């Protein structure tokens, strides 16, 4: 039980207890706060797992942006979660799936052992070698036919290299997804500003458009 494992276990139990607290709480405001704490604990654990880039993003996004968005929605919606009888079937289904998953992890490689398949594959070697200074080998030639022939980029931070250079096309797709999400929010909420909701009316009167935006 080295010190590292101790920290690991303490962080994990804290994380699990926050998640269970989120599940049990009725007060939506407290749940929003706990979501922020949950993301921050996730970020701490990711830092513990040697992934600073991801911890960075998770802390900035999880603790920062999503909490603000949830609070903003709560301001607009100001609803209180009504106590409703939960059917036990949900609990049974969840426990069943959990049991099967735990059974599935029994023969997975244990945490951090050096000869796990993910770490010994040649691809990882290529990603890490991509950071060598280009002066040693000639200018970044495309990855040759055999996997041994590395693709040299010369940037120390291999995560950025893989993100932008090896996987540039996928990251473009991800940026397009973020673009569409931004567009979606704009279109969905743009409509809400003009209409005054009139629940009694069955058919909503066509709102008079306020002109082309601000």
């Amino acid at each position, binding site marked *: 039980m080295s010190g590292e494992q101790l920290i690991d276990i303490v962080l994990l139990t804290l994380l699990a207890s926050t998640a269970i607290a*989120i599940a049990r709480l009725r007060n*939506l405001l407290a749940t929003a706060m706990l979501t922020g704490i949950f993301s921050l604990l996730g970020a701490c654990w*990711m830092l513990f797992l*040697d992934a600073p880039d991801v911890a960075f993003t998770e802390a900035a*996004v999880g603790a920062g942006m999503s909490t603000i968005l949830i609070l903003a929605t709560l301001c607009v919606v100001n609803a209180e979660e009504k106590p409703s009888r939960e059917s036990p079937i949900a609990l049974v289904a969840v426990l069943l799936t959990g049991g099967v998953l735990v059974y599935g*992890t029994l023969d997975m*490689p244990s945490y951090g052992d050096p000869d796990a398949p993910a770490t010994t594959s040649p691809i990882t070697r290529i990603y890490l070698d991509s950071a060598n200074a280009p002066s040693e080998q000639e200018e970044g030639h495309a990855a040759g036919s055999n996997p041994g022939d590395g693709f040299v980029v010369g940037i120390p*931070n291999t995560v950025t290299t893989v993100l932008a250079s090896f996987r540039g096309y996928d990251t473009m797709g991800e940026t397009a997804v973020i673009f569409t*999400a931004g567009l979606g929010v704009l279109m969905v*909420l743009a409509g809400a500003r003009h209409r005054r909701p009139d629940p009694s009316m069955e058919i909503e009167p066509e709102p008079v458009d306020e002109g082309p935006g601000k």
Partner: protein
Amino acid sequence: MTDVLGLFNYWIVIVLMMTGFYIVIARHNLIKKLIGLSVFQVSVFLLYITIGVIEGGTAPIVAEGYAVYSNPLPSVLILTAIVVGVATIAVGLALVVRIQEEYGTIEEDEIQAQDHKA
């Protein structure tokens, strides 16, 4: 079961996954469901990162004096997934606002009741 510690990470990830799953299934409030969804997402992210770790390795930033690095690939996948996750949750919350405006409530069973009535 000597390496209970080894698999402990995966079990906690599964506990988080199941908690998120339970919130999405059992709770009727729409905002609560979205929060459950983000809990589920964070657990998937942690699963990916746990797979990429090597004992005694350091962050995948090549520097002199370090030889063992953790695998950069999971970090890349999760980096974009987190921001996309928040963007989709923003769209979900925008829809919740519109649902509340149209139906006057964000409890799932009341919404279904109004749907059956209409």
